[in-house]
């Protein structure tokens, strides 16, 4: 009888111990958004603002969100425009959302176009940041035409470690050359898809931002 009681106590204490361990990782979400600021794409930044606001309104306490620009060399923390890990308290999380939005607004007003487009560098930075954030579900949003234009000497032929990541390309605008030869556009998308899927991630393209709500299910 005493043995049985001790077994029950042991089982209960183990349950409590394992049960009480904080398992934040599987339940939180991390979103990293890359904004292309090169050349004429700066005109599209108002759309990006809408997307950011939409994401902000959908994120919950405990989630992480960062917005970074894509410029000549994007593999740098300096390119992160705003980043936040929302606090546990919903009221505080709301305040953080408002501050985040203000930062983005300020950035969009004063943004200057960059000469080159280093999307891969931005992706690497996104992977690093999201891994550090230890979030459960990671999403990288690329707001760009996906045309990479690297400065001479920059090495970006690096395999991406995207296992457990969802990569969503937003508002992939067609360039003038794409209109002449649409294969360029399709090849560009296919190349990125191949690269992402080779890294273990999932790939999705959303050009119609009206459908954003139904596509981006966080």
């Amino acid at each position, binding site marked *: 009888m005493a043995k049985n009681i001790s077994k029950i106590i042991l089982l209960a204490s183990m349950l409590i111990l394992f049960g009480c361990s904080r398992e934040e990782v599987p*339940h939180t979400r991390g979103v990293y958004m890359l904004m292309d600021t090169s050349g004429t794409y700066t005109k599209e930044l108002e759309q990006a603002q809408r997307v950011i606001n939409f994401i902000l309104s959908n994120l919950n306490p405990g989630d992480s969100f960062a917005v970074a620009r894509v410029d000549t060399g994007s593999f740098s923390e300096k390119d992160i425009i705003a980043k936040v890990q929302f606090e546990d308290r*919903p*009221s505080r999380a*709301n305040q953080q959302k408002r501050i985040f939005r203000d930062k983005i607004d300020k950035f969009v007003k004063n943004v200057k176009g960059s000469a080159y487009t280093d999307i891969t560098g931005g992706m690497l930075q996104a992977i690093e940041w999201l891994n550090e954030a230890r979030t459960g579900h990671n999403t990288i949003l690329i707001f760009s035409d996906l045309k990479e234009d690297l400065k001479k000497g920059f090495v970006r032929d690096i395999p991406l470690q995207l296992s457990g990541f969802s990569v969503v390309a937003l508002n992939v605008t067609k360039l003038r050359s794409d209109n002449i030869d649409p294969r360029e556009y399709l090849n560009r998308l296919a190349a990125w898809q191949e690269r992402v899927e080779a890294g273990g991630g999932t790939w999705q393209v959303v050009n119609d931002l009206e459908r954003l709500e139904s596509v981006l299910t966080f």
Partner: protein
Amino acid sequence: MSLSNFLMITPNPVASGVIWFVIISIVLYIARAHAHQGILAASRTVRNALRLSAHSVMLLVNRLHQRNKEVLLNQGREAAERIIEREFERVDATVRRDLAEYPALHRLLSEEITKIDEDYKESIDVPPAPPGWVKAVEAVAKIPTTKGDPMVGNVLEDIHQSLIKANTKATEEYRKASHQRHQLLTNMMPHWRRLRQLLTQVDKNINSLLQRSTTIDRHMDEFEGIIHQTDRAARMLSSSSLTQFFISLFVLAIAVGGAVINFHLIARPLSEMVGGTSYIMGFQMNNIAAMVIILVELAMGLFLMESMRITRLFPVIGALNDKTRQRMVWTFFSILFFLAMVEAGLAFMREILMEEDAATRAILRGDSVAKEVAQGSYLWITTAAQMGMGFVLPFALMFVAIPLETFVHSLRTVLGVVMVGLLRVLAWSLRFLGNIARYTGDTLVHGYDLIIFAPLWIERMVKGAKQGEVKKKEKKNVDSMHFGGAA
């Protein structure tokens, strides 16, 4: 050598088939008696095993039925005792309240009756006494008179006048006395009314006692039935228990609905306190906290009802002395009140959070109209409603204790009835399978004989021929004896 090669005795498959059929028929015919015995023995074994199992299950059913009856009768006895006890308490209260005042009532009645009696005596009609000098007048009137003597006439005239005066005076006095008597009779009316009221009250009290005694008689009859463990009492209790089970289940379902609403009221604001991102065993911490608060409220409600002796789920609380019990009542009520206040506060917090969320979303969307709507002046109504619900629901959930007690008590009976039903179905199924096994054995025996119909037919033919010869011989013997006898 494959199986087909083995089976093909001759190149012609039909011939091979016929040969095999003949071989099999012969083998089966030789083994017929043993095969029949084997098949029948196997079917009997299965059938007996199944029937034995069915019998065991039926024994279990009877035991369970008996146990259910005992439980039901025990519960019924306890319930009847409680009802009778309560009826006696009511009778006691009535007797204490009404009949304890009976001496005072009796005194009151006596006083009223005395007053009425006195008034009655005073109101007796006493005719006025004739004046004493009337006889003197008669004597004067008999005096012989002579014509022309005016003296006698004058005297009589004076007497006549005096008589009229006396009569008038007497009449007035009589009227006055009658008026006084009528006044007395009028004054008797309130006493009569009071008397009537008192007697009506007494009648009502007595009738109430009589009604109570009738109810007690009815309950006592039921109680006696339960004590004597009659089938009627068991049936009535079973039916009553089933009804109570479904009613309590329905009320509990309503209570669960209330608890769910309560949960949604407090779960969201609790994330402000305990955080919304921590998880325990896969559940959000704020949800667990909300659930714990509701369960604590339920527990406090149960204890409160128990301390008030409305329910009897915890005999320990019921057995406490009255003073301790009273203290516990106040303690549990205070905790419940405190939790209700906390819930009202959380409901208020929920509304603030929702408004803030709506405002943030409106800002993020750049929607000025939505922002205004989010800050609308009518929102105090929903805030007040949520706070009210947050305060009231804990007290409403407190009353779950009553259907819960009924549910727990009736559940035993219902489970017993369901178990008996299931076991009866099992017993029937076992018996059915036993019969199937038996008839399957018979069918197999007939099927076996069908396969070896040819040898059996030959056997019958041979037997028939032998019997024919025996009969012929017997007939010959009989004939020879007959003719020999005749010769």
